[in-house]
């Protein structure tokens, strides 16, 4: 949990593109709709209107909240233009677009003074599963997280997520109660498997062995629980085996050239996923630093294959090679992580298309990043740490030699155009030599006023209700770059509408990408043609057609 949480935080820091407060101008837009169950109105339900994603960053933005009236109708007035998610907050019901999203609901994009109507939801009453979790001696397991799986793509079992996180925890009697579940088949389990990609992290005294209802470690022998709409299945009790042992792994981080220990650096470790090029799966940063001898310790590691590496701080000169090790039965000693002084790239960020000081001073928000492409060995995950100074200069350090992709990102109205050096545009990918100090790189950002207003039309069938899309507007030619929306992504709303704003003049390729719908076979087969559009200083409109009829309706 700690791991997952710190990861989440990290990603949010890196993305950092939280939705910005909307303009202060009085807005007259409105959004309304109706909530029903079996076509009957559902009164008294809270409906929220929030900016999409990034909502956990702690910054409460103006959130709209409304309640359905006796006819099930809700309405938000005074909505500024922008991207939102409309979410009925009815935890005991199933919202059709739910299941995989943090916030089940519908994406809407509203223009200035637009009156958006009929954003309706038909809900079904959710099912319930209750039971009791006990340990090997029969005592209740308290505050234990229960895992719920449902059938997904290819009839495979996949985790069922609910925003209602707390319902997965047993209480002081070992009891749990999972509710609001769509009708279907479920597996209930507790504990963790070996080599399941997760890392136990600072949890003492071992880990609970994976146990499915009614009492098997094997998913194939688990009993599927049939939940009907509004039905309640009780006595899904699980007795878990004795905790299995975890171990410690110790080692140190050294400068590969001099052999001297690196003191006070952070380390991270993750599970190694098998494959032609093994890669690091879920990983965590314990938050501890190496001591005066450069030593680190990983506590409470369960058996499995891991890689440990240095987690470089911003401005660090070093990168590291991950050191792979196996934990079998016993503590590990003497691990050595080799760190190398990396290459560096420095330069300045410039803006084209405006002299407005208010815009120019936003260069400090630009994030310049460099990452290795086509790695031949397993690499430690690295992040484009924020790099720009208030004066627009930037420096990237600790870069691994080899083929490197340079990029930059910023919130609208700034967008990344290209990189130059000595007046010559740099290719999308450059080759860095070991220890190279590349200076004088100019990152050119564009200030755009263009708008792409689009409509996604579906012909030859209907999309599943959970279908959601984002639009990537990729600049054609040169180093390119993608135009971001105020929250990071440009969403296609429930009516198929999307708006890309702050676009610098030029040619763009629009790519519609389905998101958050791993369970829908129809979505997996979906292929949408990329479309080109030329943008000037004003607005262009575009229609993108998705023809479902071109694809076969394959059934499992």
């Amino acid at each position, binding site marked *: 949990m700690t791991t997952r*949480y710190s990861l989440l935080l990290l990603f949010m*820091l890196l993305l*950092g593109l*939280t939705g*910005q*407060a909307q303009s202060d101008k009085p807005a007259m837009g409105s959004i309304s709709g109706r909530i029903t169950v079996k076509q009957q109105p559902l009164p*008294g339900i*809270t409906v*929220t209107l*929030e900016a999409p994603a990034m*909502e*956990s*960053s*702690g*910054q*409460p933005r103006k*959130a709209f*909240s409304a*309640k359905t009236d006796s006819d099930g109708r809700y309405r938000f007035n005074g909505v500024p233009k922008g991207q939102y998610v409309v979410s009925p*907050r009815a*935890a*005991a019901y199933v919202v059709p677009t739910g299941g995989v999203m*943090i916030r089940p609901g519908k994406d809407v994009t509203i223009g200035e003074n637009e009156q958006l109507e009929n954003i309706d939801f038909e809900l079904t009453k*959710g099912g*319930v599963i209750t039971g009791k979790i006990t340990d090997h001696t029969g005592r209740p397991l*308290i505050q234990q997280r229960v895992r719920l799986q449902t059938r997904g793509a290819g009839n495979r079992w996949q985790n069922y997520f609910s*925003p*209602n*996180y*707390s*319902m997965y*925890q047993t*209480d*002081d009697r070992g009891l749990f*109660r999972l*509710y609001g579940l769509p009708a279907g088949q479920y597996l209930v389990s507790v504990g963790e498997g070996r080599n399941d990609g997760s890392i136990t992290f*600072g*949890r*003492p*005294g071992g880990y609970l062995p994976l146990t499915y209802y009614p009492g098997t470690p094997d998913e194939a022998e688990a009993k599927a629980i049939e939940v009907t709409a509004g039905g309640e299945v009780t006595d899904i009790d699980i007795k878990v085996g004795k*905790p299995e042992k975890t171990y410690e792994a110790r080692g140190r981080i050294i400068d590969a050239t001099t052999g001297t220990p690196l*003191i*006070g650096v952070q380390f991270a470790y993750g599970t190694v996923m098998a494959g032609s090029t093994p890669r690091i799966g879920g990983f965590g940063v314990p*938050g*501890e*630093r*190496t*001591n*005066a001898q450069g*030593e680190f*310790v990983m*506590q409470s590691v369960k058996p499995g294959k891991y890689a440990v590496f240095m987690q470089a701080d*911003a401005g660090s000169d070093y990168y590291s090679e991950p050191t792979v090790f196996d934990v079998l039965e016993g503590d590990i000693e003497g691990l050595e992580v080799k760190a190398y002084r990396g290459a560096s790239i420095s330069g300045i960020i410039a803006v084209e298309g405006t002299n407005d000081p*208010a815009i120019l001073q*936003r260069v400090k928000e630009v994030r310049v990043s460099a990452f290795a492409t086509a790695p031949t060995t397993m690499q430690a995950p690295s992040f484009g*740490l924020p*790099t*720009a*100074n*208030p004066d627009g200069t930037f420096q990237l350090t600790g870069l691994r030699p080899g083929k490197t992709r340079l990029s930059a990102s910023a919130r609208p109205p700034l967008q990344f155009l290209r990189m130059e050096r000595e007046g010559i545009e740099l290719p999308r990918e450059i080759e860095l030599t070991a220890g190279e100090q590349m200076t004088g790189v100019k990152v050119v950002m564009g200030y755009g006023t263009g708008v792409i207003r689009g409509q996604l039309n579906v012909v030859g069938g209907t999309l599943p209700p959970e279908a959601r899309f984002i639009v990537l507007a990729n600049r054609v030619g040169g180093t390119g770059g993608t135009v971001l929306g105020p929250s990071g992504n440009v969403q296609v709303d429930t009516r198929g509408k999307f708006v890309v704003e702050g676009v610098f003049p030029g040619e763009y390729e629009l790519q519609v990408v389905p998101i958050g719908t791993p369970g829908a076979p129809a979505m997996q087969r979906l292929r949408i043609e990329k479309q080109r559009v030329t943008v000037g200083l004003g607005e262009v409109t575009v229609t993108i057609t998705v023809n479902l009829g071109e694809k076969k309706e394959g059934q499992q």
Partner: protein
Amino acid sequence: MTRALLLVLLLLPSFALAQETAPNKTPNKTPNKTEDPPPKRKGSIKGKVMSDDGQPLESANINLNAAKYSGMGDWRQAQTDDEGNFVLDGLASGLYHLSASTSAYVEAERPLEQKFYRLGDVVTFTLVKGGVITGRVTNGLGEPVIAAPIRLERVSDLEGRKINSEWWYGQQRKTDDRGVYRVYGLPAGRYVVSVGGKAPYRHGSSTAYESDTPTFYPSASREGATEITVNIGEEVRGIDIRYRHEKGHSISGKVTGAPADNSLLSYSIQVELHRYPGNALEMSLYIQATDPTKSFEFITVPDGEYELIANVYAGENKDSYQSNRRRVTVKGGNVTNVELRLSPLSSIEAKLEWEATPEKERKAECQTTRPLNAEETMFWLVKDDPKPANPLSVDAVLRHDLPTEKGELKYQNLEAGVYRFSPRLLDEAWYIKSILAKDDAPKPKAQNPKLPPPPDLGKQGIALKAGEKRKDIVLTLANGAASVRGRVVAEKDQALPSRLRIHLVPAEKEAADDLLRYAEQKTKDGTFTFANLAPGKYWLLARRVPDDEADGKRVNLLAWDVTTRKTLRAEAEATNNAIELTPCQRVKEHKLTFGK
């Protein structure tokens, strides 16, 4: 930061540090030496976790935090075996804070002096079965209120004494699809229960109830809340709440003075809304450094009095920023244009000097004196704030550090004010003889005989201006400290008050204002221990603790207040329970009669 903060919070209640001397430590080596440190001694801390009925507790978690941050291994966990035993081994010598926990249990309340440990210590934790509050939340139509966050606030102990507000289970507990909630693992005390509203820190996604103010049991605002008494291990049922939909108001404004330094890249400004008085964090939010407006708005704030504060945490060894504390009253309307002005916080760096009596001059009873083991000695810095702006807030006024190998102490991110060192050390052989402000350049006395002595900060305290970085503080430690242990007894046929405060007052007239010579301690069973005392003459004085004073709240010594000090001296002189302490003297079983 969270961990450091947590530690500080854990440390609040008192100064009295563990007085037990640990078994033989690495000998010699004064911390003044600058040569390479020898490899640190390794060792273990072990112990047992029991329930209050004497049964060993299996699978209880032990959390260990090093008192001084040094890198690897500062944070460790262990779990008890079938017999409730645990071992934390491979620990470097140092001082560690230990706590024990297991689901549905709470640690028995105990003074802080038992929470810090050294290698070789054997610890017994007693855990008490926590209480439970359970009930159902419905709306005006009697329908269940679903997935609504439940918050519990422990407002007073079982005797009804107010405590520094403690929140329990911010948003981890929610009502289920029947509207039923159940919160367990509660320490005994009196609680108010609320449902809905915004949690201080939102973990994960928002709830449907954030646009309402919290409804308190039974169906009230906070003022109308009914307190619920939970005895040890008791399950209190039927705490049913009728939910009200109340919107509250907003508090908005902006933060100014944000650091321009982009080396703090991706920093964010945290704005906190605390209830006043009590310091309970009601809500918090972040402003991104890149947000040009630096504006904030708290919505759904119920009527009441609050304190707002903004801060920027800069990271280890950097100076953080904090704003003024801005008091705000919400009553029937929105509060706008609140300005929180950030400014850099202050710091104090101090150096330890040693004044060891040469071995041949030592009295016989001092022969066993070991050099001070700096890595196991904690120095407490306390803000001398007799009337703190927020009287129940203690986390802002108490800091600790352990000296480096070179005997340096550093306290960062301090608010402006007057600070004092607590004279309590872990090692009984030493005492703080003086605290002086000294320039680095030594001035030869012979040439300038009229040079005034350096300011005696043991009396005055260390004054710190906003943003000031003081580096001129010298603490002189001397060995030959004395100690006195004993017990307060009642006069014949009299009962002893349930809570007493024992004062130690220097009897010499010239020491009347030397606050390093004063000590005080709260006791419930009448026993007391004073150590790290400068040799000299003292009076002992036992006084009843006022009934309304909660345990573990006081940070300032009563003697720090000049008027109270005079009163104490007068009372001490009148009762004249005098004791003369010679160097290294260990007085045991001293008897002090109450009321005499």
